[in-house]
């Protein structure tokens, strides 16, 4: 034991107690969050698991609750999210590269930066209005799956840009210097060193973006996605619906059978979300593991 000093009132017991109390509080928060999630999953499983079947996935919606399936909405969601991911990834990474590697820091880039950060917080319905005006009307794409995908791309673009910027910024400047010192052009340093190093971080951002796009409903309703689609999208200009819209539609029906279908739809949506995230995580680990780029 250290000698006690009159000017110190160390109160060890109380400090230890406070530490334990805080730890307990944090544990409680985790428990509440997990418990709610478990309740949700159990409820869903109880309500909908019996409806989840190959038939449910491969059937189109129907007036008869027991025959209603989710094929059109599932395909619509996959189309929309794929288009959104490809477009947002391309535009987002290029934007981030420009802002981090090419642009000179001045008031103009600072304004752009502030705007991108703010765009991430704009309500999604505003993107729906934007998509309706630009893609549906001005570009004449109609209320198509392509217009929906592009609208979703705009919605998640800020997320991708910000994640990509952070990933690019975390690549040590010494790597760029090493490349320049060998006579690399800026483009070569970016392509061969910066982007491969930043890719895991960029893909993490893409996972978040895809998860967001998969769950969003409002912008697609605004730009005119259908709620009852008895056909699969047959091309980029086909009309479409997505899972969240289909689920919302079913929950607002009075028949209990549709409520079961909604619960089953949510299970399918969750599985799709987990699959896409898992795919992106596998891809990310590939980038992290390989020694040569």
């Amino acid at each position, binding site marked *: 034991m250290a000698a006690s000093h009159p000017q110190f009132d160390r109160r060890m017991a109380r400090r230890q107690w406070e530490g334990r109390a805080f730890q307990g509080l944090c544990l409680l928060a985790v428990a509440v969050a997990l418990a709610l999630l478990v309740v949700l999953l159990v409820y869903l499983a109880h309500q909908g698991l019996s409806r989840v079947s190959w038939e449910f996935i491969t059937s189109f919606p129907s007036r008869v609750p027991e025959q209603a399936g989710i094929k059109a909405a599932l395909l619509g969601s996959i189309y929309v999210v794929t288009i959104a991911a490809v477009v947002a990834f391309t535009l987002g990474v290029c934007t981030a590269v420009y802002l981090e590697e090419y642009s*000179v*820091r001045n008031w103009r880039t600072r304004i752009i930066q502030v705007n991108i950060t703010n765009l991430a917080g704009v309500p999604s319905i505003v993107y729906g209005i934007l998509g309706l005006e630009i893609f549906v009307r001005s570009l004449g794409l109609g209320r198509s799956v392509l217009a929906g995908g592009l609208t979703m791309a705009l919605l998640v673009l800020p997320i991708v840009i910000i994640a990509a910027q952070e990933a690019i910024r975390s690549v*040590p400047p*010494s*790597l*760029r*210097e*090493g*490349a*320049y*010192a*060998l*006579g*690399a*052009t800026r483009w*070569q340093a970016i392509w*061969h*060193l910066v982007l*491969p*190093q930043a890719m895991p971080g960029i893909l993490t951002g893409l996972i978040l973006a895809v998860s967001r796009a998969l769950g969003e409903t409002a912008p697609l309703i605004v730009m005119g996605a259908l709620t009852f689609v008895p056909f699969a999208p047959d091309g980029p200009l086909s009309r479409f619906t997505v899972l969240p819209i289909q689920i919302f539609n079913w929950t607002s029906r009075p028949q209990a059978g549709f409520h079961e279908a909604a619960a089953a739809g949510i299970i399918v949506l969750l599985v799709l979300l987990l699959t896409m995230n898992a795919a992106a995580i596998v891809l990310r680990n590939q980038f992290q593991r390989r*020694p*040569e*780029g």
Partner: protein
Amino acid sequence: MQSSDPILQTRGLSVYYGNKQAVSDITLDVVRHRITAIIGPSGCGKSTLLRCFNRMNDLIPKFRATGQVLFEGRDLYSPTVDPTEIRYQIGMVFQRPNPFPKSIFDNVAFGPRINGFRGNLAELVESSLIRAALWEEVKDRLTSSALSLSGGQQQRLCIARALAVQPQVILMDEPCSSLDPIATLAIEDLMRELSTEYSIVIVTHNMQQAARVSDFTTFLMGVEKLGGQIIEYGETRLIFTNPKDERTEAYITGRFG
């Protein structure tokens, strides 16, 4: 101070970062196939001067240089010169080893690849690693990550990487400051060997190192508001045994810095 066969020369070179002057009025010759050391206290502009020789300072915003830097008589800061084009002729090794997060082979092959090398890449990688005295240690694991090497090995890998693009000059910015004494000696031996084929400029804060390896020594010292200036330049032997300026003598005898 004029040597018969300079490969790099500066003429009245001053460098500014914004309003701050980093070095002023540097006139210096770097002799071909010799090792030139730049010594001086911290913050006197040694690295700034070194980075003028391959225009690495261009990457810093608000950088501005006046005067001339001549490479084989050609002004490196002339508007017609593309900095990427001179950087493969004037290689650089940095203070901290900065191998790329790639395999050992790909680290050495990086420069040749981006510069459009069309010969036998495996041969070039091998000869570069041999010249950097690293081949024996890594020849059985060329595909392992360069990050698995020790600090000293990483620095020799960075030297091999620089050699692979066939430079004429190698700039070294305190290449041993993050290495242990044994790795430092290995790099110094290597520098002596390389000086038969390459011209080397080394920045060091280690006076013993300058005395051990260099043929010529420049002593730089910061002056109020003007940044670093050359206090004395000459053959290393003379600078260390018979300095003309009392500030040089004070520095090399360890009275400040």
